[in-house]
C-alpha cells in the first residue's frame, strides 16, 4: 500500500515572488495594450457616435439643411436649463436645432416606454411655434421583427404620418399640456393629439405614444419657461464675429 505513495514526488510550489512577478508582467502587458487600443480608437468612436446622434436629431426636424444647420445640447430639469458642451452631450435630454440663419428650427427630445419585449427608445422633433411634434425616429426597439422593429415601424408611412403634425398644445397656464398624447386603436383617430396605432402592432404603437406623452408632459412646460434661452444661439454669433475679424 505505501510504496507507490512514496514514489510520487511532491509537486513543489514555486515561490510567491515568481507568481506575483509573472502576474504583474502579464497585467502590465495587458494594461499597456488596452490603453493603446483605447487611445487609438477613442476619437474615432466619439466621432461616429456624434455623427449618428446628429443625423438622428436632424432627421426629426424637417426642412433642415444638414450642411449648414447647427445644434446645441441641453440638460433640462425642474431645477433649470444647463447648456452642455459637446463632450458631455451624453447627459443631454434636449437638442436644439438652428437653421442656417441661426434661428431655432426645432427641438429634439427622447421618449422611452416599455414595449412588447423591451423599452422602445424614440427621438422626436418639437416645433415650439406650432406647438406640435413634427418628426419621429426609432432609436432602439427590440419588439417582434416584422411588426414592431425599427425598420417596420419607420416603413409604415401611415403610422409615421401621425408624427408630422401631432398637437401638443400647452394649456393657458403653461404648466401642463392641454391634451396629453393618447394612442388609439387603428383607424379611430379623431383628434389632433391622438396617435393612430399600427394594426397588428398595438403594443409597440402604445409604447411609442406613451414614451412621447411622458416626455412631453414633463419637458414641454419647462421648455416654455426657458424658450428664450434655448432660442439664442451663441455659436452662430461667435462664428459671425470671427468672420468679421478675419
Amino acid at each position, binding site marked *: 500500500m505505501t510504496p507507490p505513495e512514496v514514489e510520487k514526488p511532491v509537486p513543489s510550489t514555486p515561490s510567491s515572488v515568481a507568481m506575483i512577478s509573472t502576474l504583474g508582467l502579464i497585467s502590465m502587458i495587458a494594461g499597456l495594450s488596452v490603453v493603446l487600443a483605447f487611445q487609438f480608437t477613442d476619437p474615432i468612436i466619439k466621432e461616429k457616435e456624434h455623427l449618428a446622434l446628429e443625423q438622428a436629431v436632424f432627421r426629426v426636424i424637417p426642412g433642415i439643411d444638414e450642411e449648414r444647420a447647427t445644434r446645441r445640447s441641453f440638460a433640462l430639469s425642474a431645477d433649470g436649463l444647463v447648456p452642455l458642451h459637446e463632450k458631455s452631450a451624453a447627459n443631454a435630454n434636449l437638442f436644439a436645432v438652428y437653421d442656417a440663419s441661426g434661428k431655432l428650427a426645432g427641438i429634439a427630445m427622447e421618449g422611452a416606454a416599455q414595449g412588447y419585449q423591451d423599452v422602445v427608445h424614440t427621438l422626436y422633433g418639437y416645433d415650439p411655434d406650432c406647438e406640435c411634434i413634427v418628426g419621429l425616429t426609432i432609436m432602439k426597439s427590440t419588439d417582434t421583427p416584422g411588426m414592431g422593429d425599427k425598420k417596420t415601424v419607420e416603413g409604415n408611412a401611415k403610422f409615421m404620418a401621425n408624427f408630422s403634425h401631432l398637437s401638443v398644445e400647452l394649456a393657458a397656464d403653461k404648466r401642463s399640456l392641454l391634451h396629453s398624447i393618447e394612442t388609439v*386603436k387603428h383607424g379611430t383617430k379623431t383628434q389632433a393629439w391622438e396617435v393612430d396605432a399600427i394594426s*397588428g402592432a*398595438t403594443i409597440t404603437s402604445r409604447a411609442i405614444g406613451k414614451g412621447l406623452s411622458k416626455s412631453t408632459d414633463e419637458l414641454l412646460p419647462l421648455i416654455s419657461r426657458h424658450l428664450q434661452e434655448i432660442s439664442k444661439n451663441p455659436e452662430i454669433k461667435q462664428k459671425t464675429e470671427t468672420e468679421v475679424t478675419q
Partner: protein
Amino acid sequence: MAEKAPMIELRTSPHVRRAQSVDQIMRNVVYALLPVCAFSVYQFGISAFALLLIALLACIGTEHLFCRLSDKPTTVGDYSAVISGLLLALTLPPGFPLWMAALAGFVGIALAKVMFGGIGLNVFNPALVGRAFVQAAFPVAITTWTPAFAPGRFTEFIPSTLTLPFTEPVAVTQWVKDLAVDGFTGATPLALQKFGNGALAHVTTSTTDLFMGMTAGSAGETSALLILVCGAYLIFRRMMDWRIPAAMILGTFVTAWGFFLLDPSSYPTPVFMLFSGGLMLGAVFMASDMTASPVTPVGVWIYGLLIGFLTVIIRLFGGLPEGVMYAILFGNAASPLISVVTQPRVYGTSGKKRKADS
C-alpha cells in the same frame, strides 16, 4: 434468475370485454372531434375544410416520412397523428394560408413527437407546438380573423387561404369590407376585451353568442356547447379523464372570479373567460392529451388548476389576448414534476416512513 417470471394478468370482473387499446381510444377521440370540425366548416365554409384537410395530411405525411427514414413500421395507423392534425387546424384562424398550416403540421409532429420518440413519449402536445411555432413565425397571419357565416362561404375561399407558398398572405381587409358583416372589427371577443378602449368592450359580446359559437375566432374554438357535448361523449365512454377539463375550467373560473370581484369595471366576468377563445377546446381536447399530462389523481387536479390559473393570468396581463396555448404547454412541461411529487402512498406502507427509517 434468467427465467422469465410467469405473467399473470389480473382484472376485476366482469371479464367480458377487452381493455381499450390505444388506437381504439384515439379513434373515438377522432369521432368526438368530427362534429366540432363539421361545425367549423359550416361556420367558415370551404376555407375551414381545406385547412382541416391540409393540416391532417401534413401531420400524417410527416409521421409516415419519419417512420420510413428511421426504418420503423409506420405508426400512422394509431390515429394519434390524425388527432394532432385536426386539433391543429381547429386552433388556426379559418383564413390561415394553407402552406403555413402544412408547415405547422410538419413542425408539430417532427419537433414535438418524432424527435421525442413517437406516441407515448412526447413531452408536449404536438398540435400546440405546431401552433406555437407559426404563432412566433407569422404573428400577423395568425391574428388575422375573418367573420363567421360569410354569405358565400361554401363557394369561395377566403382570399388569404390560397396564398402561394412562402409568400405573404393576401390582404383580407377589402374582402371583409365587401362582405359588410355588421359590426365586424377584425378582432375576436378576447382581443376586443384586451385592446379595446374602455371597460365596456367585453359587454358587447353576449354570452349566448359565445356559448353557441356565433363569433369570430379560430376555426374550432368558438362553439363551447358543441365541444362540451363531444367531451361528454368521451367521458361517458371512459376514454378521457374527466378531472382534467373539470380542473382546468374550475381553475379558470376561480381565478377570473377573483379578479372580477377585485375590480368588476376593468376585469371581464368569469363566464366570459370560460366561453371565449380556445378555452373549451383546450380544456377538453388538448390539456387531456394522455402522454403529456400527469398520471396521478391528485396530480391531474393540480395540472388542470395550474393551466386554468395560467390561462387567466396570461390573458389579463400578458402581451397576447389568448393564453390557453401557452398555459397548456407550460402545464405539459410541469406534468412530469407533478407526477413525481404526487406519488400515492404504496398500500401497506406508512405515511411517516421517513421517521421510522431514522
